[in-house]
């Protein structure tokens, strides 16, 4: 069996996926970033500093919560990894703290970021404030509308938010715009990419920065389950960073890994090989090679691409990718809230929705033990939920 979730090849490949499909202008920056990351990641001092911020600032380790009521109702054992408790409200801060420290180490004075749900933008604005860096966040106009709360949070944190009006006016286009700005500002600017997408070394680096989710969970789950590891590990997949970070902690176990995509943004489940935003992966596109506009109630999953490592894991069958609909997601948000007192993000609710649907079927037989990563909290989604649950 192919060894997976290690370091990619020197040209940044995970099997046939990955690579560094960026303009020549950005190659030196990507190389410098790769070198800086390699060096920092091998430096105990860097790891210690990052760990310090994670613990004393971001609230790590996040809790592992046994969802006792849902477990009883579903006939399974459901454990929740609570990234919703992390500072700024999602797992995005894990990655951003790493990249911001790296940027500072590289002498950069400015961060730019793309954001969909706004969680990555808020996390970036937060780290920029903390480390005294400037921040510019690119956000699709449509997402600005549905995630107004997060836009204001970014402003309050002192970041500039640039509305992106091209294309589908969502995450995909915000990413284009961030790339464009990066090309022109690469001297003082670090592109703080928010998921396991983009050119090498991002998919690898972001997975490594998110690995803390899976590693913490692995240890916590061992204390909860007599089997030590769960039967199934499940997480939602937009670009795929919370899933990658989670999976990384369990890929060497017998656990089945399940990534849940939005039905309208299911790059692994419904995409074809292609190149988007700097890497080769699976991409939702038409037969002419034009990238499709994803459609999801969750701004953070409204993305037609996916991290290349997920394309690899899916291809190898090491992870399974499934989809849930917007309607299932709304039901899942409400059910988790009513049964466990946790209002999760629309993104995270995708993972919950799959568990609700699959429990008791062959997909997730009664008696299964499940670790589910709740990637974020739902505060940002209240406006949308008020509409959607009406």
């Amino acid at each position, binding site marked *: 069996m192919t060894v997976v979730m290690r370091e990619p090849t020197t040209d940044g490949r995970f099997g046939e996926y990955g*690579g560094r499909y960026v303009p020549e202008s950005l190659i030196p920056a990507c190389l410098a970033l790769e070198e800086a990351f390699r060096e920092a990641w091998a430096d105990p001092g860097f790891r210690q500093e990052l760990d310090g911020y994670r613990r004393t600032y971001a609230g790590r380790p996040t809790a592992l919560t046994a969802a006792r009521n849902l477990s009883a109702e579903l006939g399974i054992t459901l454990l929740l990894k609570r990234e919703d408790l992390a500072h700024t409200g999602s797992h995005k801060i894990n990655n951003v703290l790493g990249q911001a420290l790296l940027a500072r180490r590289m002498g950069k004075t400015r961060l730019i970021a793309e954001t969909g749900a706004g969680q990555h933008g808020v996390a970036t604005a937060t780290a920029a404030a903390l480390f005294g860096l400037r921040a510019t966040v690119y956000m699709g106009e449509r997402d600005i509308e549905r995630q107004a709360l997060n836009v204001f949070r970014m402003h309050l944190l002192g970041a500039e938010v640039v509305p992106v009006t091209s294309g589908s006016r969502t995450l995909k286009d915000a990413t284009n715009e961030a790339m464009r700005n990066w090309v022109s500002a690469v001297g003082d600017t670090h592109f703080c990419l928010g998921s396991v997408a983009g050119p090498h070394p991002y998919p690898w680096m972001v997975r490594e920065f998110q690995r803390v989710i899976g590693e913490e969970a692995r240890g916590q789950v061992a204390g909860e389950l007599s089997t030590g590891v769960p039967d199934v590990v499940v997480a939602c997949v937009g670009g795929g960073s919370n899933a990658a970070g989670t999976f990384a902690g369990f890929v060497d176990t017998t656990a089945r890994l399940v990534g849940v995509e939005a039905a309208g943004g299911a790059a692994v489940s419904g995409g074809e090989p292609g190149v988007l935003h700097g890497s080769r992966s699976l991409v939702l596109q038409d037969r*002419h090679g034009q*990238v499709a506009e994803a459609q999801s109630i969750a701004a953070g999953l409204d993305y037609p691409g996916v991290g290349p490592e997920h394309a690899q894991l899916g291809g190898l069958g090491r992870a399974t990718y499934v989809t849930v609909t917007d309607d299932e997601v709304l039901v899942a948000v409400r059910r988790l809230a009513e049964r466990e007192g946790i209002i999760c993000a629309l993104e995270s609710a995708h993972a919950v929705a799959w568990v609700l649907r699959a429990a008791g079927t062959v997909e997730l037989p009664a008696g299964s033990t499940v670790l589910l990563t709740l990637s974020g909290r739902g505060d940002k989604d209240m406006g949308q939920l008020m509409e959607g649950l009406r």
Partner: protein
Amino acid sequence: MTTTLSAALPLTGRPLLVPYVTGGITADWTELLLACQDGGADAIEVGLPFSDPMLDGPTIQEASDRALARGATVESILADLAATPLRVPVVVMTYANIVLRIGLPALAAAGVSGLIVPDLPLEESAATEAAAAAAGIDLVLLAAPSTPDDRLREICARSRGFVYAISVMGTTGERARLADSAATLAARLKAVTDLPVLIGFGVSTPAQAVEAGRAGDGAVIASVLMRRVLDGATANELAADVAAYRTALDLGVSPGTPHAEISGHRG
């Protein structure tokens, strides 16, 4: 239409002019190609519109969106191209996702001579270089102001037809002046290659083209022309615009010359 780039772009000392047209930007967009040719283009760059043009500024983005919104597809554009009798070679510029999807033979079949893929750097281009060579298409590689010397040498060694010098750290788009980085990069390239060095990205006036022609071997003129087309310029007007660049380049009018005298924007 089977002219190779190398044959069409001889280094005679006369600066080369390569106007750019977004494929499918208007219903009669191939008229624009003929206009470029009439205006004195040495070759024409044709953009195959992509939904996510990561290296393009607002003008080319808008041109691509317009073409796609019109219903233009890569297939239809290539069909249009194949049906257009051009003397000068066509260099297609598009993104990796499109190239990987359509393949080089389809480009060759449409009579395309060269190909520029801005998101296909050295590390990722080997397969496409091979496929291009097999299809008889010159894969033009790009160099950027940030490219270090060793990469520059390899880019020149592997580029075919010409080398595309990205004038500035940035996207395509009109600029008030040609960046200093353009001349510096062109000089660095000329020092290591005999291929023509064409400067592109934001060359926006005949005077800037003259500068580019002096620093390198000519210029790609893109956003400024597409802005004109987006604003409603006819093929004739575009031909006049291109001719103004041609004249300026041929006369070597000094960059100091006031814009008005050499501008093609007369109408």
